[in-house]
């Protein structure tokens, strides 16, 4: 029925998906034999439609997923960097919502951005914000339920943490950089941060935790009792500010359940 069917065969040329895939991601590779235009001739430009689709689709997905990184290096540079990245780290699943997980490590050694040492931390923050966006739903506890517990009950309690909550410890002021670029915050300065990422309603949030906050919150996430988490945090940081940390956890809707001991 189609013209292609009536054409003389160019031979039994099987194009494997391994060959197709290799040529897709590597523009230096020749187009596999056996792919033709309607006249049975080699179809290089036609193959490059697929090449362009793959590169364009993946680099645009990264541009959408890392808005602050793209702003820091410029969209044009970001797209060129994404082209290098996607050839080394193509997606490993069809869930594009999480694509780019290896970008922080990639940026640690990418020659084009070695002088921008804060980029990997910014990438980590943007990935965490995306994870929070897609995390499971949970309603925050009423803070009164926490404050009305006496000391002994509180220490024995296990707090259930929101599936959106995680802690990021950075070498560079990633949240300050994010705020400066997305919310018109003050000029970023200083060194590393301890950042709590969570979600209020449907909107991801990032807030700074005081010293010792990472140990405390990570212990809660692991399922330690309140008392154990507090002990671990104060062992590391004798002047750990529990009140400030709890304030951040409550404000960010990070506590979703209070398991009292039997």
């Amino acid at each position, binding site marked *: 029925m189609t013209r292609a069917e009536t054409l003389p065969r160019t031979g039994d040329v099987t194009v494997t998906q391994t060959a197709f895939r290799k040529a897709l991601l590597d523009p230096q590779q020749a187009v596999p034999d056996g792919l033709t235009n309607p006249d049975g001739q080699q179809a290089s430009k036609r193959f490059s439609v697929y090449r362009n689709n793959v590169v364009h689709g993946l680099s645009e997905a990264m541009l959408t997923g890392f808005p602050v990184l793209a702003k820091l290096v410029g969209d044009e540079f970001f797209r060129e960097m994404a082209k290098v990245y996607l050839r080394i780290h193509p997606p490993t699943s*069809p869930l594009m919502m999480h694509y780019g997980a290896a970008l922080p490590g990639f940026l640690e050694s990418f020659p084009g951005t070695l002088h921008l040492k804060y980029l990997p931390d910014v990438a980590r923050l943007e990935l965490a914000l995306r994870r929070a966006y897609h995390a499971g739903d949970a309603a925050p506890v009423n803070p009164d339920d926490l404050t009305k517990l006496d000391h002994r009950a509180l220490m024995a309690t296990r707090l259930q943490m929101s599936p959106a909550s995680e802690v990021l410890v950075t070498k560079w002021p990633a949240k300050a950089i994010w705020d400066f670029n997305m919310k018109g915050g003050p000029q970023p300065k200083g060194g590393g941060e301890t950042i709590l990422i969570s979600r209020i309603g449907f909107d991801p949030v990032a807030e700074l935790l005081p010293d010792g906050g990472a140990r405390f919150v990570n212990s809660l996430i692991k399922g330690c009792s309140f008392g154990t988490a507090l002990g671990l945090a104060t062992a590391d940081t004798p002047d750990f500010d529990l009140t400030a940390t709890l304030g951040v956890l409550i404000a960010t809707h990070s506590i979703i359940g209070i398991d009292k001991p039997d």
Partner: protein
Amino acid sequence: MLDIAHDNTLPNGAGVGYKPQHFAALIDNPGTVSWLEIHAENYMGDGGRPMAQLRHLAEHFPISVHGVGLSIGGETRLDPEHLARLKRLVDWLNPAMFSEHLAWSTHDGAFLNDLLPLPYTTNTLTRITAHINEVQDHLGRKMLLENPSSYLAFAESTWSEPDFLREVARRTGCGLLLDVNNVFVSATNLDFDPRAYIDAYPLDLVEEFHLAGHDEDADEMGRKLLIDSHGTPVDEPVWTLFDHVIARAGARPALVEWDNDVPDWDILEAEAARATRHMEPALAAQVSA
């Protein structure tokens, strides 16, 4: 499973590919849009705004779940994790329809985020049949298989695309999704008559139509090369081909896809309204018949 009040089947009217930026406008004024399609892979997160919007939409519209990541045309086995994710979504949403592509997208552990072509041979027929059987068994429902848009031909192909699709459907019991724009794009790129393709197509197995825009380019020989870009209005010759399809097949649920340079809601709704208008004579005949 979601508790849905409306009749959970796709009506013989126009639907659109859902875009989150249209959420408020669509709820406010759906116009002639009577059903929605979502891409399965965008709704495989655990929760958050996307899932909440989908739950809300499903209460108001029949939903067609369109997969872009199963890689049914892949040489290797289907990804069991992805199949499990799909089942979780379908079991929860209980959509009116599930469809996927005659294409592959994953190989050697890499998902390439594109619908890649395959030759039509006895070998690929066996493979596609096994994969569709696996999907239908796993989901516990019938699926629709969509014809691809092609930029090149495989020298090794021994089946025409309509015959290949007919045989896949015969062996698996799956239905077909006829993408009219894909037919036009492939016909231009591979130099065949799109009407002859439609005439050879098993239209009785078609349960859904797709319409979309394409871009125009040229290959190194200066031949016209159409790109299935989904970023423009449906082209006039595609509407004409759509009329030919309707004249032969009657009205079916017809979807307008617009995935890039997505316009404001009223422009997308107007495209859907046009699809409805093209089907009105056939619908009137179907009602009176």
